[in-house]
């Protein structure tokens, strides 16, 4: 895929200037109780546009729970989550996806029997409109851009005439939105597969991909929904050091494409290496919020992680 298309339809990458950015997502005094158990206790933090925020904490600290509140799986008992100024809680997952939040899953949840390409295309579909009548009757016509018109390429005279007829028809009647959307979806999906580095497996069924490629495919699928905020839930789980290094590069590239990234991670070193800011949870409470350096010196964070040994994680 050419270099030009990778930045097409995207905002230019945002320079790293902490403090000057506007808040993209705000978790505001969220409390979540399950019966008598307090899962989240008055958690507040913000995610700024264009940053990579790490959300860390020992096992059972409430990382994934926070995540689920942010993506609308759980409704907070009190407090709320705002995204781009709009309320998130209470909305259904497809709506939240359209608002611009996307995610990957801790235990990979691809569509196992669909090909890698189709998996990503499901993501791109969320920005498209064709439904049953559109796909069936193709009556909704759109005027194509010059490069989208059918090309006259053949050397065989008869085929050449046929291609010319199709081109003229497309010029007069336009092309159906369905066709244009399909092409756009396929192009963008291939581009995303290339971006995460598994374009060679586009036509393989997701179930048959190796573990690492499945993780990458999940990221590509999430990116396909054009999220402003991409949430990665332990993307490095089960990776060896070399793969983790590649993942770090990928996360930085994702940010450079203009996405804000929330990274939930257990592995401290991974988080310290890539994030701009870190929020630390313990027992459902926020205990630290700051730059990786500040946080790693914070005595409470060290205490929280002592039982688990920071470098072993």
């Amino acid at each position, binding site marked *: 895929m050419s270099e030009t298309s990778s930045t097409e339809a995207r905002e230019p990458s945002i320079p790293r200037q902490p403090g000057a950015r506007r808040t993209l997502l705000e978790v505001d005094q969220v409390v979540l109780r399950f019966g008598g158990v307090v899962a989240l206790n008055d958690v507040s933090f913000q995610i700024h546009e264009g940053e990579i925020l790490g959300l860390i904490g020992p096992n059972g600290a409430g990382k994934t729970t926070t995540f689920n509140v942010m993506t609308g799986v759980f409704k907070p008992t009190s407090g709320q989550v705002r995204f781009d100024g709009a309320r998130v809680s209470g909305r259904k997952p497809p709506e939240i996806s359209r608002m611009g939040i996307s*995610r990957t899953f801790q235990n990979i949840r*691809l569509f*196992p*029997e669909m090909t890698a390409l*189709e998996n990503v295309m*499901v993501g791109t579909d969320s920005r*498209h409109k*064709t*439904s049953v009548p559109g796909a069936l009757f193709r009556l909704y016509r759109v005027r194509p851009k010059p490069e989208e018109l059918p090309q006259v390429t053949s050397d065989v005279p008869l085929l050449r005439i046929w291609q010319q007829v199709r081109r003229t028809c497309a010029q007069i009647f336009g092309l159906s939105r369905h066709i244009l959307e399909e092409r756009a979806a396929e192009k963008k999906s291939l581009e995303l597969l290339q971006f995460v580095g598994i374009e*060679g497996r586009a036509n393989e069924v997701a179930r048959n991909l190796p573990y690492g490629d499945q993780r990458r495919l999940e990221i590509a699928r999430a990116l396909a929904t054009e999220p402003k905020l991409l949430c990665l839930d332990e993307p490095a789980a089960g990776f060896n050091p070399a793969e983790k290094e590649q993942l770090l590069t990928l996360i930085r590239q994702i940010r450079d494409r203009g996405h804000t990234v929330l990274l939930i991670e257990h592995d401290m070193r991974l988080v310290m290496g890539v994030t701009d800011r870190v929020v630390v949870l313990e027992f459902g409470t926020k205990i630290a919020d700051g730059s990786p350096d500040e946080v790693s010196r914070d005595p409470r964070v060290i205490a929280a992680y002592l039982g688990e040994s920071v470098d072993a994680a």
Partner: protein
Amino acid sequence: MMDKVRATEARRRAALNGIADRWAALPPWQRLIGVAAFIAFLYYLPLLGIPGLTWLRTDSIDGGNSWAGVLFTCAIYVLVAIGLNVVVGLAGLLDLGYIGFFAIGAYSVALFGSTNSPVVKWMQRTFDLEPTWAVAWAICIPLAIALSLTSGVILGWPTLRLRGDYLAIVTLGFGEIIRIVARNLTGVTNGAAGISAIPGPEGAPSADNKIFGLQDLKPWYWLAITVVLLMVFAVRRLENSRVGRSWLAIREDEDAAAVMGVNGFKFKLWAFAIGAALGGLSGFLFASRNAFIDPSQFNATLSILFVAMVVVGGSGNMVGVAFGAVLLAYLPERFRFVSDYRWVAFGFAMVVVMVLRPQGLIPSRRRARELQDRAKEAKVSV
């Protein structure tokens, strides 16, 4: 980069062999010719006289049914299977009440198109029409589709939020409700006595009908196969679109699909409605050709047979389900000499196929792969 994709694709094709792969590897124009030849053969089938193949004909045995008539039944069942495949195979919704939509389609043309129906008689009285008046056959087509589609939406709206097995049993109940209502509402449907004189393309059945008569059933088959081909074309369009992908995604993992922005309920309802419309259309054709229907023709056994066609043939794969439909419609007709025992044999065959080949006779490629992997997993975990 596209080259790279194509290269891996070519490797994959080379690595696998099988009819489907060889077929997919053919250049487009050869495939086009192949499809055209197959369609031509389908239209030629009722005249089948090739030496060595004539034993296929059901009238080659004593007391066998009209060959074209059996072909017509096969075509109707294929249409049913294609519709049900959208619901069961693509969207993964288990619908055991498909006969309900079939019945609604059949009763649409019976109630509005036949001069013997209480509905038409009521219209004649109310609007002061001639006693020969009835709604034209051609108008009954959209009517049947609209009514069955609407009933699909009405049934789906409350029930599609239910879990899979509950959906199965609720739909099974729906099929029974339709049949019982048709039996009990004597004032509307003539009840168990049924409705006769259901029109065909040339109007009410009579000896004067030149093409769509009662004796020569070939035109009926040609009509049905044309409808089938049109619907195959339409469903293929849906399969290879945003809609088809959404169905598959819902079938695979509904929660993950929702997070990726797929509106599960909307697409499930569409699948249900499209399935219902196709079921209604096949019921419509069935009633037109039969010229007479009564509620006992729409019992739940048939509904279950429909699901069996889809699953035995290979759920999710249109070629597979069509094959399953032909098999299940054709075998009992061809092997009439075992008459009484054919249903036992049929039941056994279903069990044997399912135990030995759970992915169906002609599985969809992806589905087969899944099952093989699952078997491997199972072996490892034991």
